[in-house]
């Protein structure tokens, strides 16, 4: 296929060592690690600017407090009074995901070599966050309820003959949770970035072709990329919200056993 050699949408997700190949040591400093450090720096700056604890909060402090109150409200409504203990983890998830989602949309590609890296479009990153959430569910569930935790798989009022079937289905849906949690964020981000790459390439190729048809296709693709950008701004926030919300709901299952 000729077009495949020109447009390679998967190249942007490739992890490379900054000082040589990835073979050899497992502790190579990669472009992914560099971009995560950049996200961490932005995050630290944002939080540090708002944690001066002024009596009359300025704009910055109100912004930071808005984030914190949003997440603490989410954990309190979905977990209950005990949700306060889990607020730090949910907040860590939410703010890391939303920052890395938005920073991966930065137009720093105009600087040569300054391409942003979509950290949350790596299944290792989202998978690790989902596995930690899932481990919290398991540890808290077995710690609080001991073996009674298994009653999670049999909802109240299940008719006796249905118990084995329902328990099997509930068990499968419980075990699939970390995968679905990680896959949702990962695929949503990767899909958006692939669309940018493919249709951005259409714009460039259309203009390079120099024909009227090429210009028309470039114009249509450009408008489409603008629309995808607008949607992606929404998706970035929704995916961070959904990840945090589902994590707190899963923790709620472990704390209160439905």
């Amino acid at each position, binding site marked *: *296929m000729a077009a495949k050699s020109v447009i390679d949408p*998967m190249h942007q997700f490739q992890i490379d060592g900054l000082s040589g190949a990835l073979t050899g040591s497992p502790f190579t400093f990669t472009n992914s690690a560099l971009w995560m450090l950049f996200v961490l720096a932005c995050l630290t700056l944002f939080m540090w600017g708002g944690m001066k604890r002024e009596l009359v909060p300025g704009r910055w402090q109100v912004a930071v407090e808005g984030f914190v109150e949003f997440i603490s409200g*989410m954990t309190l*409504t*979905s977990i209950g009074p005990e949700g306060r203990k889990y607020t730090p983890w949910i907040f860590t998830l939410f703010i890391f995901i939303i920052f890395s989602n938005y920073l991966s949309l930065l137009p720093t590609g105009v600087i040569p070599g300054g391409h942003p890296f979509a950290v949350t479009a790596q299944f290792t990153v989202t998978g690790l966050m989902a596995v930690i959430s899932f481990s919290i569910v398991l540890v808290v569930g077995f710690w609080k309820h001991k073996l009674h935790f298994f009653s999670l798989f049999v909802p109240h009022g299940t008719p006796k003959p249905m118990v084995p079937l329902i328990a099997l289905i509930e068990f499968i849906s419980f075990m699939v949770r970390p995968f*679905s949690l990680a*896959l*949702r964020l990962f*695929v*949503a981000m*990767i*899909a958006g970035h*692939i669309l940018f790459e493919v249709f951005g390439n259409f714009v460039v190729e259309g203009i390079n072709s120099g024909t009227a048809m090429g210009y028309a296709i470039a114009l249509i693709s450009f408008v489409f990329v603008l629309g995808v950008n607008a949607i992606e701004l929404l998706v970035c926030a*929704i995916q961070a*919200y*959904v990840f945090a*919300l*589902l994590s707190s*709901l899963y923790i709620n299952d472990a704390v209160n056993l439905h």
Partner: protein
Amino acid sequence: MDLASAKVIGAGLAAIGTGIASVGVGFVFGSFLQGALRNPGAADGQQGRLFIGFAAAELLGLIAFAVAMIILYGFNG
């Protein structure tokens, strides 16, 4: 039919799934609006459930997309 064209056709068929998932997402938000306009007072309390339904419907479309990507790029043949 050679493998390259079969791959492209398969990816196109998998893309139908994303379109069907969009129907599901629209249904979730449409039903929420129907309920919310009848009882606006209770709407704010149900936003968490709205996004759970949205996430569940969206996940299946995203899986269809992932299948298309695996077909296109996942294996070389």
